[in-house]
């Protein structure tokens, strides 16, 4: 079944791909002089069919593109292969003119970014160019068949009518290209360069190094420090993501059921009480909590007064000479505390969601199970839990990926507080409690090690995407959600 669907999809993709070029070939071969003229001057096809304004506009775009190519793209693209060769020199006093002169130099980073932008523009223009040809040919066909040709006003009206999606999607798409796609491309590109502290533009150049950074990380020169730290951070990141996702998920369901259970009054008030805790912004609560649990903080004093510190000493949880419990300064304590604090942050959210999900639980199924004599526990295990899993499955996956990249909780709780004792970690600027994201962030902020940060970024992305795809396809197999649709 799945095989068949796959095959169908593939053949569809192939045909639509082939179709695209067949249409293009047809337009070039069968087009009349006006269509062929569009190969050179893009507006020709429109001008010939008396779509004057459109023809002029398209030609202007072409002109603008050519100017952009000559004055913007080419200077950068010509250096894109090397990312620049002329080193920066300090301004010098010219002995002849007695003026301070700055010699022209290459800025590798600008070359990289503008090079990528240029390539992007070229691709977009090519697509536009091909589309234009096809349009011109379509016009020719319409003319031959005697169909009326749209006036410019009609074209505009179409943009608010059946082509409204073009109007709607253009601006958001530009935004996404600028904020999501372009950074992604830049990130990938940097991972293949030697951009770091020693190669910082404008003072120095950096260049392409191929897969060197990846090789260094896995078994090369950096594997003793970076590889070591990477392994540790990766394991903790995954452990954290699993723990954080499941504790909050289960906790949220339990809390929702507790509030919803009969015998509990003022359900709405209870819910509001928990929501207040998450309504305060995280950077306030988390910084507050981190000071609450500080080594010299108020909670340590309470623990000391209540004898909890002594108890921990006896149990060997802290060293016998310790005068405080290192809640956020010892690696094991910190890991436990982070997960606990995250439960504090996450459960109210999950409680709200679970409340909504439980409201829509299949009541008739529960009722009939009850009549058949099923126990509370059986109903919960066989109906409620599977139902919640099906409804919440996709959200769980998103939560997991979000937790892999949970910057706020880790950074706000441990930055400036937690100091690593492990020289291997220290050398690669990592901490035991870092997630890959926070490590990446600090690598760029504190070490300017952009090449390794980008490598890590790519790896995290691959992990997130692969995980999401695997679990989505697992979840969607069999289409179980229909069992519960009312």
């Amino acid at each position, binding site marked *: 079944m799945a095989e068949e669907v796959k095959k169908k999809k593939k053949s569809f993709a192939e045909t639509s791909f082939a179709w695209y070029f067949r249409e293009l070939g047809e337009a070039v071969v069968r087009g009349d002089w006006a269509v062929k003229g569009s190969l050179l001057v893009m507006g020709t096809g429109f001008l010939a069919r008396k779509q004057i304004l459109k023809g002029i506009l398209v030609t202007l775009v072409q002109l603008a593109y050519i100017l952009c190519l000559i004055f913007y793209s080419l200077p950068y693209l010509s250096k894109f292969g090397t990312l620049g060769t002329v080193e920066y020199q300090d301004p010098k006093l010219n002995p002849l003119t007695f003026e301070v002169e700055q010699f022209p130099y290459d800025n590798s980073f600008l070359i990289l*970014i503008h090079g990528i932008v240029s390539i992007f523009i070229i691709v977009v223009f090519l697509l536009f160019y091909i589309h234009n040809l096809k349009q011109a040919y379509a016009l020719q066909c319409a003319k031959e068949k005697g169909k009326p040709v749209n006036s410019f006003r009609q074209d505009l009206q179409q943009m608010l009518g059946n082509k409204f999606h073009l109007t709607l999607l253009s601006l958001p798409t530009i935004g*996404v290209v600028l904020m999501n796609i372009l950074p992604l491309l830049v990130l990938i590109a940097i991972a293949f360069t030697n951009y770091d502290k020693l190669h910082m533009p404008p003072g120095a150049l950096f260049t392409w190094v191929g897969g060197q950074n990846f090789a260094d990380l896995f078994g090369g020169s950096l594997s003793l420090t970076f590889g070591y730290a990477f392994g540790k951070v990766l394991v903790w990141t995954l452990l954290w993501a699993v723990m954080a996702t499941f504790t909050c998920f289960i906790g949220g369901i339990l809390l929702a059921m507790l509030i919803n259970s009969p015998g509990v009054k003022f359900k709405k008030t209870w819910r509001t009480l928990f*929501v207040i805790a998450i*309504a305060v912004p995280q950077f*306030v609560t988390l910084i507050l909590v981190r000071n609450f649990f500080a080594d010299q903080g108020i909670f340590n004093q309470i623990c000391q007064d209540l004898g909890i510190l002594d108890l921990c000493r006896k149990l060997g949880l802290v060293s016998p000479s310790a005068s405080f419990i290192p809640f956020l300064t010892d690696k094991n304590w910190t890991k436990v505390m982070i997960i606990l604090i995250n439960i504090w942050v996450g459960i109210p959210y999950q409680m709200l969601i679970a409340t909504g999900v*439980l409201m829509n639980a299949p009541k008739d199924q529960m009722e009939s199970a009850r009549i058949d004599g099923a126990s509370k526990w059986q109903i919960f295990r066989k109906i*409620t839990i599977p139902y919640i899993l099906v409804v919440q499955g996709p959200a769980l996956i998103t939560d997991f990926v979000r937790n892999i990249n949970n910057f706020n909780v880790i950074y706000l709780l441990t930055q400036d507080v937690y100091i690593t004792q492990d020289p291997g970690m220290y050398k690669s600027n990592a901490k035991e409690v870092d997630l890959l994201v926070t490590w990446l*962030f600090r690598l760029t902020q504190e070490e300017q090690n952009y090449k390794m940060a980008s490598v890590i970024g790519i790896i995290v992305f691959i992990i997130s995407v692969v995980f999401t795809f695997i679990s989505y396809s697992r979840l969607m197999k069999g289409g179980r959600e229909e069992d519960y649709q009312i």
Partner: protein
Amino acid sequence: MSEKEKRSAGGLKIAFEHSSKMGMSKKRRIGGTVKTILLLILAVIWLIPILWLLVTAFSAYPGMSRTRFFPENWTLDNFARLFFRPDSILQYVRWFWNTLVISIFTCIVSSIFVLMVSYAFSCMRFPGRQGMIRVSMILGMFPGALSMVAVYFIMKSIGLTNSHVGMVVVYSAGSGLGYLIVKGFMDTVPASLREAAKMEGANELTIFFKVMMPLCRPIIVYQVISAFLGPWSDFMFARLMLNSGLSKDWTVAIGLYNMLDKSLIGQNFSAFCAGGLVISIPIAILFVIMQKYYVEGVTSGSTKG
């Protein structure tokens, strides 16, 4: 809400109570008391930090007290300091204003973007729609946290770091990807309504404004509030983009974080709490309203379908 409450309670009753009818009310009463006590303990745990924030904001002692949860002497001076006595670090009014401006513009741009994308994906059928949805899902999976470094460089190369315009661009440019909830809501609006409007000669623009917008009111309120709240609670991008070290550029999040620098915590902790409290109140109110509209929007969909 109250009706839904009843409904849910009714539904859950089935799951929870089905034992013999004899002596049930007594059993339930005891169970109810135990549950209430448990809830009370949990609520206390959840509210202790908030309570600490609240009382410390009124503490006359500027630093963090190790021995007292409730302050020894109460004062309003921390608030006075925030609002009337700015210094080189603490410029709360300025931060508040910065954040307000950034979030208003972000809210406008990203709400419009989200509504536009949602309408296109939900109400229109065009070639490439499925492909775009799929691509947007993959892009949405790519966490902002990873690309932020590259975002920073791109903004730097066009000179928009340490600028509030740059912050608005960072927050709102990619917002079109966050269309899922609004689109989900629009999907529940019957297509027949749009068809009818079309029969009467309305074009898509008219349908967008005259048919869909009024119907989507709850989810629009949700969207507007959540877009407005984004910049208030963002820490990461602000930390990255506003790195000049000049207090007048900061947002509230960065300002409050920097206030508690190791060397400053002794003199600023109470003021930090006051600042946290002041910003939390409007945010908490908006957050609660947003939740209400979210529930309304999501649940009303099923009755309309």
